C-alpha cells in the first residue's frame, strides 16, 4: 500500500477546511436567525473521516457517494458543487432540491449523489441497487459508498442492506462514523458488541477500524477499502471512532456529552490534528495554511453571496405534481 502523499493529504485537508468554514458560516447565520431555511446539522469532528472517503471516489469512474447528515466534507471532496449546499441552506429555488427538500437531504442521484431521506440506514440498499444496476448494465467497475453513524447501525434497514450487499457481492464501502452519540443516546444504549466492526464478520464483509480524527490514517484505510471493494467486488465496512463536536443539530447544545470524551484521542478536532501533522511533516507552512484558509473563506463567501441573491421557490408556479407520468396526476383537493 502506497504511503499517503503530501499532495493527497493537502488536497483532502483543504476539503475539510472548506467544509468547516462553510458549516461555520451556515451555523453563524442560523444562530443570527432569518437567513437559513430549516435545520442545521454539522459534520464538525467528522471531516477527516468523511473527506478521506470522498477523495478516494471518482465521478469519472462512475462511483457513488451516498453521504449522510455529517458528510459535507466528503460530498465536496467527491465533487458536489459548493453552490449546492449554499443554495439548499439559504433556500434558493436554484438549489438541487428546488425548495422541495433541504439541506442535508440534497443530492443529484443521476450524478452519483443519491439524496438521503431522514430514515437512517435506508440509503445503504439504494447505493447497493445503483451498484447492482451498473453491474447488470455492464458498466466499468466502480465503487459505491454509503455513510452511516453508530445510531443507523441499529436499524433493520442497515442490517438488511449489509446482508444483501454481501450476498450480491457488491463493491460497496460502508463508512460507519462512530461519533459516540445518536442525538443524545450514548453508544452504551445503542449496541452491546465490543466494537461495531465486529458486525462485519457476521455479515461476511471485510471490516476495517480507524482513528476517525487522524486524516493520514483515514486516507490510508479508505484507500485500502476502496481498492479492496474494486478488486474483490465485495463490501467493506470501515468503522471510524471520533466524537461529534457539535450538538445533533445547532438547536442542541449537547449538554449530555460526557466531558471526558472530549479529552480522549477520539475527541480531538480532526482539522487541528491534520494541520499539526502537515506542519510537522513539512508539507506546508503556517502561511500556506493561512492562504488555504483565505481561499476557502473566499469561495464560501462567493457561493453564499450568490445563493443569498437568488429567490426562494414560488408556490404559485410550483407544479404540485409528484409523478413523472403527468397524465396520471390527480387534480388535488376534490
Amino acid at each position, binding site marked *: 500500500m502506497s504511503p499517503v502523499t503530501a499532495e493527497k493529504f493537502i488536497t483532502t485537508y483543504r476539503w475539510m477546511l472548506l467544509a468547516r468554514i462553510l458549516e461555520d458560516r451556515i451555523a453563524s447565520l442560523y444562530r443570527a436567525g432569518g437567513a437559513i431555511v430549516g435545520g442545521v446539522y454539522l459534520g464538525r469532528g467528522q471531516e477527516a473521516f468523511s473527506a478521506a472517503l470522498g477523495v478516494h471516489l471518482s465521478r469519472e469512474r462512475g462511483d457513488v457517494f451516498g453521504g449522510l447528515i455529517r458528510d459535507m466534507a466528503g460530498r465536496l471532496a467527491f465533487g458536489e458543487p459548493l453552490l449546492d449546499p449554499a443554495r439548499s441552506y439559504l433556500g434558493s429555488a436554484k438549489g*438541487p*432540491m*428546488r425548495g*422541495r*427538500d433541504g439541506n442535508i*437531504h440534497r*443530492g*443529484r*442521484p*443521476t450524478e452519483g449523489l*443519491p*439524496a438521503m*431521506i*431522514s*430514515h437512517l440506514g*435506508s*440509503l*445503504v*440498499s*439504494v*447505493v*447497493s*441497487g*445503483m*451498484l*447492482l*444496476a*451498473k453491474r*447488470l*448494465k455492464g458498466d466499468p467497475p466502480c465503487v459505491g459508498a454509503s455513510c452511516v453513524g453508530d445510531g443507523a447501525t441499529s436499524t*433493520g*434497514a442497515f442490517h*438488511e*442492506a449489509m*446482508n*444483501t450487499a454481501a*450476498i*450480491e457481492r457488491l463493491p460497496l464501502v460502508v463508512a460507519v462514523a462512530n461519533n459516540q452519540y445518536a442525538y443524545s443516546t450514548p453508544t452504551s444504549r445503542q449496541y452491546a458488541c465490543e466494537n461495531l466492526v465486529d458486525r462485519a464478520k457476521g455479515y461476511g464483509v471485510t471490516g476495517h477500524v480507524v482513528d476517525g480524527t487522524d486524516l493520514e490514517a483515514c486516507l490510508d484505510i479508505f484507500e485500502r477499502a476502496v481498492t479492496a471493494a474494486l478488486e474483490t467486488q465485495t463490501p467493506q465496512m470501515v468503522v471510524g471512532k471520533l466524537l461529534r463536536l457539535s450538538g445533533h443539530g445547532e438547536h442542541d447544545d449537547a449538554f449530555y456529552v460526557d466531558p471526558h470524551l472530549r479529552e480522549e484521542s477520539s475527541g480531538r478536532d480532526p482539522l487541528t490534528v491534520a494541520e499539526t501533522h502537515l506542519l510537522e511533516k513539512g508539507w506546508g507552512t503556517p502561511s500556506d495554511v493561512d492562504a488555504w484558509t483565505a481561499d476557502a473563506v473566499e469561495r464560501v463567501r462567493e457561493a453564499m453571496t450568490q445563493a443569498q441573491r437568488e429567490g426562494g421557490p414560488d408556490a404559485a408556479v410550483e407544479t404540485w*405534481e*409528484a*409523478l*413523472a*407520468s403527468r*397524465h*396520471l*396526476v*390527480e387534480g388535488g383537493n*376534490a
Partner: protein
Amino acid sequence: MSITYLAAIREAQAKALADDPRVFIYGQDVATFGGAFKATKGLSEAFPGRVMDAPISEDAMVGMAIGAAIEGMRPIVEMQFADFSSIAFNQIVNQAATLYWRTGTPCPITVRLPSGGTAGSGPFHSQSMEALYAHYPGLVVLTPATVEDAYSMLLEAIALPDPVIFCEHKLLYYHLKAESLPVENLPIGEARVVRSGQHATIVTYSAMVHESLKAAGMMAEDGYHIEVVDLRSVKPIDTDTVLASVARTGRLLAVGEAFPWGGVTSEVIARVAAEGFDLLDCPPRRLNARDTPIPYHPNLWKAHRPTADTIYSALTNLVRL
C-alpha cells in the same frame, strides 16, 4: 387455449424481459423455484441473470430496486405476499414515492403485491394494502380484476416512469381465465363500466368486481339493473367515469375487500359526495371487510369480507331508500 390471471402476469413479465433489457425481477424464491405462486416460473431459465432470488429483506429489496431505477433500470419486485410489503413500507412511501418530487429523478419500479384473501390464509397472508399506498403522493396503485387487465396493466406499469404498486388478487390467480391475451386495452387511469344498469351503481375493484357482478345478476332477477364500475386503478381514481355512472343511476354502493376505516371506498364516497351530491337520490353506501384482522378459518373468513350475498343485501336496501 385459455390463460389464467396468474399466467397473464407471468406472460407480461416474460414480454417485458424480452422487450426491454432494463427490466429485471427481484424477490424471494422467484428464480429456480419460480415464485411462491409460480408467477415467475421458467423466467430465470429464459432470462439468465435477470431473475434473482432475494434474501428475506423486503426493505433492502425495494431499496435495491430504487437504486437500480436511479441508474436507469426497470426493476420488478415481487413481494411474496402483499402483507410483507409492510417491511418495505418506508422504502416505498418515503424513498421511492418522494424521489421524483424531491430530485427530478424518476423512480420506475414496479412492486407486485399478491393481495387479498383466500380461504385459510389468515391475518398475515390475506391483506389488501392498496389504500395505504394510495394515501401517499408519488405512487400509482393498480388493482386489476381481469386476466386482460392483469396482463396489459402490468406491462404498462413496468413502462411507467413512476413507482407502481401492482395489487394482484390471489383468489383470481387460478380460477379466472381468458381465451387470449389482449393486444390493446384501456390505459391506466381509466375505469371500466363492466355491467350497465339504471337503478344503482356499484363502484369496486379487484376480486370484488366478480362478487359485485354476481350480486348484480341476483338483483336482475328481482327486476333491478345494477351498473358495475371497475376502478382498475385506485390511484389515480377515474372520478369522471364514477360520476357519469352515478348520474345515470342516482344511487351508489362502494365495495372493497380492505378494512373499513378510510380507504378506497371512503375516497369514492367522498368524491361523489363532494363533486356529485346533486346526482344522488339517496345517501351513498359502502361495504368493506369487517374491522378485525382477517380470520383463518374459512367459516369466519367468508363472513369477514363482502360476498355476492352481502353485496346483494346492501343493494336491496339501497334501491329501496
